[in-house]
């Protein structure tokens, strides 16, 4: 009898979940955010169906403010793997000039939340895989693996379906949909260890390198292109930084680091004093902000 390590167990669980969705749902899609969790999820999807390709497309909701290296990476991976990658941009938002500098939380809502809903509705996807993990934030800690959304994509935390053993109930009424989180039980550390074990390709932004940055409200923000607005008292300097999470570059805080190998990143993560979501600016607004956002349909 093989004794499975905890990474083996997490891998088996995720593959089981991914296969269940493929077998039971009519029109699933896997959300692909280009980050490390998405890279792990993609890797698991490839394993789950081998030698077949995953029998569903991948969806990237592009806010148009992602790091350039992320978009290059996405296009290269889709090409190499021969998977179908759908990109969705909220054109109304683009035309209205919505941007992270002037519109604050409305920006996140319009370019991410609304844009995601548009894409899911337009393609009629009944199940969308997401890379969310329960260790990221307190309200996620209570979310089921198969999480139901009503017609308006809203989550009702008080009325979740019981989830027993591995017997997932994938039945939904017309107009409703599911978000499925195969990485629910993974921690940030598990993700890194698995990336190392499986030699998974990730965006170079995770590795420390000299990059042009400014300091803003205690966060280190990278100046990725000339749309970045620089304040009068702000100065662009080159610092050796890396990113623990990837999103829109003006909203993603980096950390100063010399870690430019996976082993060094893992060492830093193991000794980390900050849990990763603090480097995303939206979460600091108030206690419970993520739960509120999720009820409104944020992934």
């Amino acid at each position, binding site marked *: 009898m093989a004794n499975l390590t*905890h990474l083996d167990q997490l891998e088996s669980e995720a593959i089981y979940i991914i296969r269940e969705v493929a077998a039971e749902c009519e029109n699933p899609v896997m959300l692909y955010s280009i980050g490390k969790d998405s890279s792990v999820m993609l890797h698991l999807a490839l394993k789950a169906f081998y030698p077949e390709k995953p029998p569903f497309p991948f969806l990237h909701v592009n806010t148009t403010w992602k790091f350039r290296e992320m978009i290059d990476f996405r296009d290269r991976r889709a090409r190499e793997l021969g998977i179908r990658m759908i990109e969705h941009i909220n054109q109304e938002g683009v035309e209205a000039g919505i941007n992270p500098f002037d519109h604050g939380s409305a920006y996140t809502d319009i370019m991410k939340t609304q844009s995601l809903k548009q894409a899911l509705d337009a393609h009629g996807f009944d199940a969308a895989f997401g890379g969310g993990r329960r260790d990221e934030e307190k309200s996620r800690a209570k979310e089921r693996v198969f999480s139901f959304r009503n017609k308006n994509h809203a989550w009702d935390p008080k009325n979740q379906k019981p989830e027993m053993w591995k017997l997932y109930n994938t039945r939904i009424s017309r107009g409703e949909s599911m978000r499925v989180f195969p990485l629910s039980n993974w921690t940030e550390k598990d993700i890194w260890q698995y990336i190392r074990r499986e030699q998974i390709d990730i965006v170079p932004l995770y590795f420390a390198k000299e990059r042009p940055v400014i300091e803003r409200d205690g966060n280190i923000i990278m100046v990725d292109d000339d749309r970045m607005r620089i304040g009068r008292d702000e100065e662009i300097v080159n610092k050796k930084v890396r990113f623990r999470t990837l999103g829109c570059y003006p909203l993603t805080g980096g950390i100063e680091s010399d870690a430019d190998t996976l082993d060094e990143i893992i060492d830093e993560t193991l000794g980390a004093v900050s849990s990763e979501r603090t480097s995303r600016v939206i979460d600091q607004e108030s206690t419970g902000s993520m*739960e509120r956002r999720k009820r409104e349909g944020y992934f």
Partner: protein
Amino acid sequence: MKDLLKFITCGSVDDGKSTLIGHMLYDAKLIFADQEKALELDSRVGSREGEIDYSLLLDGLMAEREQGITIDVAYRYFNTRQRSFIVADTPGHEEYTRNMAVGASFADLAVILVDATKGVITQTKRHARICALMGIRHIVLAVNKMDLVGYDKERFEEIRKDFIQTSYGFGLESVQAIPVSATVGDNVTGKSENTLWYDGPALLPYLETVETARGEKDEAFVLPVQRVSRPNHTFRGFQGQVEAGSIRVGDSVTALPSRETAKVKSLLIGDREAEAVSRGQAATIQLDREVDVSRGCVLTASDSIEVTDMLTATLLWMDDGPLVEGRNYLVKVGTKTLPGTIMSIKHKIDINSGDEVSAGRAYKNELVACDISLSEDLIFDTFENSEALGGMILMDRVSNATSAAGIINHSLRRATNVIWEETAVTKEHRANMKAQKPLTLWFTGLSGSGKSTLANAVEQRLAAMGRHTMLLDGDNVRHGLNRNLGFREEDRVENIRRIAEVAKLMNEAGLVTLTSFISPYESDRRSARESIGREYLEIYVSTPLEECERRDVKGLYKKARSGDIPNFTGISSPYEAPENPEIEIDTTDMPLDEAVDKVMKQIMIYMD
């Protein structure tokens, strides 16, 4: 290499279970600095006396923080040098029993908290029962608040013995009692000076070393098939997770339900070729010859697995609506989903005492033993033998809710004793002799909607055309076949089930059957449709309630309004309108002839 322990904590709000786990994470330096900061901040704003409130680490949802209780399962992750842990923190109140069951079904071990000042109480027994029912075999009894009883050894021993007596017969493999104080921190991460008389381990060190792995060395191979992979004509792989045992290339396996055997040609674990796969691994199996296998089939070397259509199960009812005999649900076992009917409720099990109580229905959070009849053969094992093939959920066919979770106790032999007699003269023969196609015209609608009048007139037309027909009418059937049935929900369900069966037999006889019944529940009509098959045509007489009540041919609405008739459809009992009837007709302002013309025109499409 580190392994993983999944455990659950149970106890009530005041027992301090969130505090215990919070304290353990805090002491063992297993939380991040910013969570620690948030914790101090939250507890200053939110709560009790301005000290660090460790429970805030776990109570995540806003509603819960406001109420100061845990209403849903929260999962926490931590690891030590020895092990990785996932802990499910669950609510203790009886009204959240189902949430606790969710946590218990996920876990290998339970930490059950008991307040040393109160001892083993009803709730402790309930929690132990649910844990055992959901398959947990290892329990830590954390006797908390030892500081409040002066760290008294006698008190601890009394509680320990009391619990062991309580859990007798639960099939537990280990019970470890530990005296703790969650607020002070005694025996949480290290041995306490206050309980020198206690010679066992502290909580965390125990969790780091306890052995809970399931599976015996020589257990038989079991793999429920999740999907069949056919990327091209040379590859046909059966994908699923190995639930028991192991298998090697060259070994033979049996496919259920077909009972065909074949040898393993190749194995994949994920995307990697392998010589063998075993319990817990995600496998893809190729066999050396063509066998009849699809999703829901099982590949196995075990001989304890049953393939039959009747079984007895213990259910934890989770739906807001009651469990009613005769209702049809979708049953999921392993990777197979199929319709099943609750034939009879044997008894309820008092969740606190374990006593068996006779009952006609069951409500949310109650335990009930019942017989279930499946629409076709199901592949299963007892839960005791196999969690993967012995656990089940019941899904509501209309709301799609998960109505119950259950464990299979045993199969019912009746299934194999009654065999459908294949007759020499077939349904087709009988229909051909009558030169017609059998049909069931299922009229549904409110009382007074015009169903019976319409059905009668349609039958006359059909008879005039030389068709052989039979009309089953509500009142007439209730005089004979169904005279032992009343109007309670379970009676209505049974009423419709019998009518559907009779209609089906008449279709077998080659007849065009017309049924005229209110048949108010979507789930019952759906069962009728499934049982009768493609002969079923649903005719929804959609005359609105106001019009039916205005007509009130039999004076029933008046009586219902004055309360003389309980459970009257449309007034005091719901009518669920059909979602996709083949024919819909509203008889308000429509002369009978015109209505019959309209229905006939549509029926004729299906007739030939």
